């Protein structure tokens, strides 16, 4: 195994799970998230000699987000939606129920807005970095983020997502 493969293995061990989590937040399906991660990692492997050390994470994230958006444009993805989750939320475990509620709310947000939300609030990217990643203007990122947050608030209601002067934040209580 050459140095390239060893370096790649080390990077894979360190970052693959985080990339898969990003993909999961985007698509809401672990199997599809793994497919997207595999695509991203394969492209990363092919581009490995050209990438600088500090650019790898950004490049991998960009592939994940763009692969997800490209797949969403395909019609068959809209018709066929595979999931490993049970059809009904688990009753009795409040944390799991809330998590499923959040996932369902996230899935109801349009893909591009979801990508903005995930990059901004999961990957902690700035508006400018998110805009560069999605190949759009910072103004578009701001408007998409505002719409995404508004959609989540509508979907989750004031209990999980209180307004600026609303009730206490209660996702982890119980």
């Amino acid at each position, binding site marked *: 195994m050459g140095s390239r493969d060893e370096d790649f293995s080390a990077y894979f061990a360190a970052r*693959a799970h985080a990339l898969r989590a*990003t993909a999961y937040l985007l698509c809401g399906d672990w199997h599809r998230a793994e497919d997207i991660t595999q695509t991203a990692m394969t492209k990363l492997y*092919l581009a490995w000699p050209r990438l600088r050390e500090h650019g790898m994470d950004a490049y991998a994230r960009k592939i994940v987000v763009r692969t997800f958006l490209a797949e969403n444009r395909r019609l068959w993805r809209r018709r066929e939606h595979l999931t490993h989750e049970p059809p009904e939320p688990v009753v009795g475990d409040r944390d799991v129920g809330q998590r499923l509620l959040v996932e369902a709310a996230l899935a109801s947000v349009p893909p591009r807005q979801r990508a903005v939300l995930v990059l901004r609030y999961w990957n902690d990217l700035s508006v400018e970095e998110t805009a560069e990643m999605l190949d759009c203007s910072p103004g578009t990122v701001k408007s998409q983020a505002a719409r995404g947050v508004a959609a989540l608030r509508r979907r989750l209601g004031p209990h999980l*997502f209180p307004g600026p002067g609303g009730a206490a934040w209660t*996702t982890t209580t119980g």
Partner: protein
Amino acid sequence: MDDDDRMRALLAEAGGQQGPPMGISADGIARRGRRIRLARWGAAVTGGLAVAAVITVSVALAANRHVEPATPPVVVTTTVDTDTPTTTVSTSTTPPGS
């Protein structure tokens, strides 16, 4: 807690779970990557050879084609003979018997 912090907490809750075991490995990705690189290299070599073959055949056909020699141009010359005298015939307009 403002909207940004709430969003971070929401996504941390949804994305922080363990998930099923990872079904892909670095070795598998590397094998796949090497296969793709090999396929790309093969396609590039095949394409290069095909282009070279087309160019070679074209040059060979152009070099071996029998070309008829061109016929010399036909020059048409016209001369005007100025030494030959010219005669004019005058005709009378008076009717006969007048």
